[in-house]
């Protein structure tokens, strides 16, 4: 694909064809999940082209992190994908551990796996609720948020916070799981099993849902890879790419789970992939909780964290896709020399103009929901 020809930027004040209409969607539109602005060029109701304008939520997290010490950065990572803060914490801590060649105890890796998967379910719940509501299904929103609350309760019990967890430490965990927390997690898995069936009853065979999602925003596997899609958005196009399987971290190498993939590469398949991921996540949580080993929760971490000079890139599978950290240490300072985040939402959002071209304005809403973005992460 040569995007030079297909995506001329829509510039403000430029003369446009009288048959075409340029409208602004956002940055305050409720379906843009935050402050995303999409400048749409329309022919009637059909989208001819779209220009995505981002940066409204840019807080300079990379720059800030280069001026904080290694431990302080953990809570800045909370504020990127704030609906999946624990995953961002784990990704960052693992990158620093890789730089320092730190060994993380097995128990800590298991708890990290449980937290990551709980977080994936919570994030997918939020995605499902808002995605369905954007398309018009209010009930699903209420259902999905009900289950998300249960997960937030579990997180609150683990680390005291419900949104920005600061739930990880370099080398392990800040504290062990509370007593009988694992039983509550299993109880949650039992509840969640039935709820997934409920979601599917509402949507999977719903005629309106099928009309609105089938054949909308089709992207084939090789093209999806080329434009940099990752996570469920990529797997919906049939590419079996999952960082948990391909480059295992935490305790994923000891877990048995499948990577669901779609076939059509449309909004409906991306929906099916995420629904199946609910089940796979529950499967992982059950294994990890059942086989939770005893032992220490923090490895041998020096009092002063100061990785040796060098750089590394480390990626994990966040609920949105490949979340990568590229960190450079100069070996002298107590702060990173360069701190870079490869945000999955940012890279997935890049594909939006490609996906919406030729569809109706209403489908833009469905597609923004379908690629599951969080603007806090896009803009950092």
């Amino acid at each position: 694909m040569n995007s030079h020809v297909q995506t001329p930027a829509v510039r403000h004040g430029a003369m446009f064809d009288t048959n075409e209409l340029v409208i602004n969607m956002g940055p305050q539109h409720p379906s843009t999940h935050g402050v995303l602005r999409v400048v749409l060029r329309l022919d009637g109701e059909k989208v001819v082209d779209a220009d995505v304008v981002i940066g409204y939520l840019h807080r300079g997290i990379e720059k800030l992190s280069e001026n904080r010490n290694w431990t302080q950065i953990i809570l800045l990572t909370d504020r990127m994908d704030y609906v999946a803060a624990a995953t961002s914490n784990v990704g960052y801590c693992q990158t620093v551990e890789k730089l320092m060649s730190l060994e993380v105890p097995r128990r800590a890796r298991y708890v990290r796996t449980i937290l990551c998967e709980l977080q994936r379910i919570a994030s997918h719940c939020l995605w499902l609720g808002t995605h369905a509501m954007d398309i018009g299904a209010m009930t699903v929103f209420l259902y999905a948020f009900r289950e998300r609350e249960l997960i937030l309760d579990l997180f609150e019990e683990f680390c005291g916070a419900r949104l920005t967890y600061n739930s990880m430490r370099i080398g392990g965990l800040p504290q062990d799981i509370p007593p009988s927390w694992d039983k509550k997690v299993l109880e949650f898995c039992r509840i969640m099993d039935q709820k997934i069936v409920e979601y599917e009853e509402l949507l999977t065979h719903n005629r309106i849902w099928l009309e609105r999602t089938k054949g909308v925003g089709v992207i084939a596997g090789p093209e999806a890879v080329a434009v940099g899609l990752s996570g469920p958005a990529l797997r919906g196009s049939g590419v079996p790419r999952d960082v948990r399987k391909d480059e295992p971290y935490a305790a994923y190498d000891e877990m048995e789970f499948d990577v669901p993939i779609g076939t059509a590469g449309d909004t409906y398949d991306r929906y099916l992939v995420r629904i199946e991921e609910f089940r796979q996540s529950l499967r992982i949580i059950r294994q990890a909780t059942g086989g939770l080993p005893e032992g220490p929760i923090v490895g041998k971490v020096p009092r002063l964290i100061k990785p040796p000079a060098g750089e590394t890139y480390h990626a994990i599978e966040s609920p949105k896709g490949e979340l990568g950290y590229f960190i450079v240490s100069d070996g002298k300072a107590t702060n990173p020399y360069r701190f870079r985040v490869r945000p999955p939402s940012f890279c997935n959002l890049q594909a939006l103009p490609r996906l919406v071209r030729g569809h109706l304005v209403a489908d833009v809403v469905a597609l923004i929901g379908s690629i599951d973005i969080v603007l806090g992460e896009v803009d950092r």
Partner: protein
Amino acid sequence: MSQVIGVPRETAAGEKRVATVPEVAAKLIKLGFKVAVQSGAGDAANFSDETYRAAGAEIVGDAARLWAQADIVFKVRGPTPEEVGLMREGGTLVSFIWPAQNPELLKQLAARKVTVLAMDSVPRISRAQKLDALSSMANIAGYRAVIEAAHHFGRFFTGQITAAGKVPPAKVFVIGAGVAGLAAIGAAAGLGAIVRANDTRPEVGDQVKSMGGEFVSVDYQEEGSGVGGYAKVMSEGFLKAQAAVFAKQAKDVDIIITTALIPGRPAPRLISAEMVRSMKPGSIIVDMAAEQGGNCELTEPHQVVVKHGVTIIGYSDLPSRLARQSSTLYATNLFRLTEELCKAKDGVVNVNMDDEVIRGTTVIKDGRITWPPPAPRLPAAPAPAARPAAGGAPADHAPKPAAPTGPPDPPPPAGQTPPDFIGALQTALPGAVTQVSYWVGDWTIIVAAARILDVARHLRDAPEAAFDLCSDVTASDWPSRAERFDVIYCLYSTRHRRRLRVKTKVAEDQPFASVTAVWPAANWLEREVFDMFGVNFTGHPDRRRILMPEDWQGYPQRKDYPLEGPGELLMENPLDWLKLRQAREEADIE
């Protein structure tokens, strides 16, 4: 055999403190010591003999027996000649000594062949903070100074609007923002007063603000920080400017609290008789430096006097006036010292002269005078930031000495052979790869900037490489290098499931080919690198800023870009800022 810690009653007139309190006595016993307390030692501080006994201490009736029995004596004030006479030969004494002011006492003690640790000589280093009795006493004194002032002051501290009329808040001016000064600021602000403070050391400005005060600076360029975080003697020009500031404040404020002290010197004269005369009737001066000669010309030590309608408080026993609190904190300081002296927790002290803290504190060791200790090396406060040159970058972003020039990029260790596709790439495009590096499990190839497109195409299309996914494009900035940017591509092959990092070095304005045609995913990623670093990509289909607004000046992720953003330039030099913006707009119109 555990040693006995003896705590005699203080004999100095008006001294209400006691060197240990029941709670701490129990902790000392846990360390393995026996504790003997003279009967009535804690009475003035409201600690009865019973409470000591309940904590496990032995109560001894008279001083002579206690001194004879004790291996270690804890005291607040330095011993009197009689007490020195009571001391056991070879024993240990811990108290305030002030060796510089009391050379005679030092000689007497040395003659008794004892070991003496002076709580006023604890070195000012972070590790010793928990046993810094000067700070804990100064803290109490600062608080008490405000309470004494409030007691003599005829008005509220806080402002009020009542049915009976409006009450303006009291204005308090604190001179010297050390531990005592900061405590005074906190206490006065807590009572609701408007608090201002001045200090010769500019770096305490933030501390003043954090305690609720307002920092009044003297407009004169001179650094007032001396060794160990204490103040130093200032030049005449500075003193003149300072006096002008104080004279102005004196006319305005209701209460002045002076805490200015310079180690080993008489207190500086800061408030002249003239300034006192200019103050409003009913005003208060609390001179905490009264014992060292006073910061105010009219202070009379240990007295409260009224001069020109202004009450001048010259008490030198402020901590003793809060005896229960100061005893508790002092006892805790002594306990921390004991912990340092008795690391084995076996009830026997070991005066280890190799320990920096103990070395500094010990003034006599086995009858040999070891005071003064070697000079403290570290300043207690971080070095203050130098003022930025007008219009220049703020000082904390000034280039540091020996600026880093990039990560080491170590070659692969023996036994790590590079994957086959790297060899194939080197064969296909000779000279393109300048270096192969391996670090914590990652392979990196460093590529000549001019060859990046060829390399990218090869890596995507060659079947043994097949890097179809461009995960990330980013950069790092090394301003001291001629080619200041590292541009980094993180690649992944979905076919072979492996990663590779490609790195190139690029100069600031050097045209550098975009890889968007090879990996469309690089589009936004390169835009971000352009936006954040200003790397000059060529052949990019849509080279606009992405996160920052279109008309933004500068490149935020560069190392010489201030963390605070351009705010400083905007505030200090709004005209320059406007000019920059206009220049850009005009260029756009053309």
